[in-house]
């Protein structure tokens, strides 16, 4: 297995040149594998797995049947290599990824309601108040209703 990896790497260097190869290596997150074991494990896991689909954020969904422990045969490689979290998986892929359905996200996207279906947004907790969703009645919601029961006098109206 190791020899195939080395072989394909050498092939890629030969075809595209060393500079392009190194850039891709970085973009694909192979450099992050050194400090991030989870990513390394995912990369290793990816070898020989089937790429089922890629969502619109660039997350890659893999499946490997046979020779894999049941329940660990579907996984995602996040497009974001450094600050990834589970909320980056959009709703349509969530079901496939968690074995709720065998339909892939691309198939389920057909069912998305046109009129009121909204874009998936990851959970931005901890990223600052302006990124966080606040419900309609929340104090920090910018469109919050004015609940004051009186109308103040406006000094500009005078004179």
């Amino acid at each position, binding site marked *: 297995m190791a020899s195939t990896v080395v072989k394909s790497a050498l092939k890629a260097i030969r075809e595209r040149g060393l500079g392009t190869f190194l850039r891709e290596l970085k973009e694909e997150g192979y450099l992050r594998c050194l400090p991030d074991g989870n990513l390394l494990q995912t990369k290793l896991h990816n070898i020989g797995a089937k790429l089922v689909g890629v969502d619109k954020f660039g997350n890659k969904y893999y499946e490997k049947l046979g020779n894999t422990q049941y329940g660990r045969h579907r996984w995602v490689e996040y497009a974001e290599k450094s600050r990834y979290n589970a909320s980056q998986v959009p709703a349509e892929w969530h079901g496939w990824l968690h074995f709720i359905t065998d339909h892939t996200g691309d198939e389920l996207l057909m069912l998305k309601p046109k009129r009121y279906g909204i874009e998936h947004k990851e959970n931005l907790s901890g990223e600052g108040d302006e990124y966080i969703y606040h419900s309609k009645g929340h104090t920090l919601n910018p469109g919050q209703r004015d609940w004051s029961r*009186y109308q*103040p006098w406006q*000094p500009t109206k005078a004179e």
Partner: protein
Amino acid sequence: MGLGLIASRAIRPVNFFSSSRFLLRTIVSKPELQSSAAAADASPEPDLPPRTPVGGARVHFTNPEDAIEVFVDGYPVKIPKGMTVLQACEVAGVDIPRFCYHSRLSIAGNCRMCLVEVEKSPKPVASCAMPALPGMKIKTDTPVAKKAREGVMEFLLMNHPLDCPICDQGGECDLQDQSMAFGSDRGRFTEMKRSVVDKNLGPLVKTVMTRCIQCTRCVRFASEVAGVQDLGILGRGSGEEIGTYVEKLMTSELSGNVIDICPVGALTSKPFAFKARNWELKGTETIDVTDAVGSNIRIDSRGPEVMRILPRLNEDINEEWISDKTRFCYDGLKRQRLNDPMIRGADGRFKVVSWRDALAIVAEVAHQVKPEEIIGIAGKLSDAESMMALKDFLNRMGSNNVWCEGTGTQPNADLRSGYIMNTSISGLEKADVFLLVGTQPRVEAVMVNARIHKTVRANNAKVGYIGPETDFNYDCQHLGTGPNTLKEIAEGRHPFFSAISNAKNPVIIVGAGVFEREDKDAIFSVVETIAKKGNVVRPDWNGLNVLLLNAAQAAALDLGLVPESSNSIDSAKFVYLMGADEVNLDKLPDDAFIVYQGHHGDRGVYRANVILPASAFSEKEGTYENTEGCAQQTLPAVPTVGDARDDWKTIRALSEVAGMRLPYDTLGGIRSRMRMVAPNLLQVDEREPATFGHSLKPEVTQKLNPARFKSAVENFYMTDAITRASKIMAQCSASLLKK
């Protein structure tokens, strides 16, 4: 509620008492009580638990010989002759269901809900219309009475829509309550219900005439209390309708009361429509300040919002009615409110500042001017505590130019009898001749006018009026327009003088609009001459009255808010307006510094340099004295808006910033200060008559000015900052005052 009690008694099995007596007998140990004879003796008694009259009513026997005894459900009660069966039942503690009967209106007897059984009477009798006779045996919980009520209820519900879920009366509806208590649990009616076209009664009263059960309370109220012949009944049987005959609005200033007396949801409040349910509301018993009568009201609030205002019973002041201005001014409390301290900058714009900065600037400017250049004017809605604090503060600053707007430049505060209603409002009912001098009670004090109307109806009292042309809702002789007529009466040349001198209890009412006249002392001396010659003031009767205009006036004069010099405004450099909007500031020097402390952005703020927000009457505890000299207190119903504070607290804080700390920190402290100045202001809910009469007044050398009296109130619906901010009042003045 009493009705529920009766209902539960009706439902209770008959043998309940006999079984309980059986239980009792086994417990009793005394042998004499165990004997069967004693048990038989006691048998009628346990059936009668001690009863208290409905609503804690007391029976007043004008003549002890006239007392008669009747039996209500076997329970003997003593009542005065002339009472109806229904009233006798109330004294006995039995609440009879009723729709058309109202204790303050004439008896119609057309709803038939009050049917009771009377022994030896072949049919059930309508108790509201039947006079009680000695020895009458009235039965209110027999099967006959029960069946009669059930039948009446079924007929009433035949044409009453089942729209309680969308009806504003829901939850406080007599029909709803009584159909629960006395109605059948099912109806047999399958046909179509009748429907009636809604009438337009103006911007205050909403009508859903399909709900009307033709009790005619509103018709009787309009003609008997409000004194307008606007409402009437048209048609017969199922075609019967309440209406105005021709398309017109109800032009009474008491029209809002038909909402209260309507037992169903046919007449409801238009501004309150679909706003709240009565069980969501918190009631606060307080006082109205829109006029000088001080009507007792209940402010119903939900959270921080005043939802509606209802009258409260006070026999001495407003009975159970209130004027439309009182009832519907509440939306003014939510508009044009001052909620932050503001300072006018160099560019002429107001800028919101903190309390600390605002008070610091006011204190600094107050120290820069000479003491005699400081003046303070209390507004017409000020409470006594704030006026006391204002006067104390300005006195410490060295100025004694404090007054209350509406009392004129030289008010006469020395003799209390010179500015209050000495007869008292309820005392007006004994009068037989009225002389109204420069006052139009119909717009100045509606509840006083309602009393006069009641007296005119009951005693055929004669009313003479001197003043500009105006509408009265009772027969009134227009004697003249100016003080010359007054002089003629005083000299006995006028025919009305004989009416006064022949009267048993004559009443003279002078309007507070006269205070603004230059020759007011002369007018008062002429009036006193009439009073002396006509024997108006006697030891047993004081008929010489002044009808004040504003809620603050009486307390202001009691506290001695009198300016030192009458033209102090011409040279003032520092003016403290405590809610005063109607002061004429034209003569004020241009460089004067004006502090406006108030709750509404009204006329007063336009020249102000500093605005200090204050709380309105619904948001503070304060003492107000009404025109008859009865001190009453308001209670806070809702929280104040924004950063506003009570008037007296602001002045107390300002005094500390200015280095002249006032010695009180609490309402209790300020009231004990008031006790030294005017102890009667602490006798809450008790009328304090004036001690000294007019005879102590010095001789008047002023000459009468023949100029006509002016009307003191131009627009009944808009007289103060609250009512001027109100949208409902604006609608009323647009549609109801149209000539």
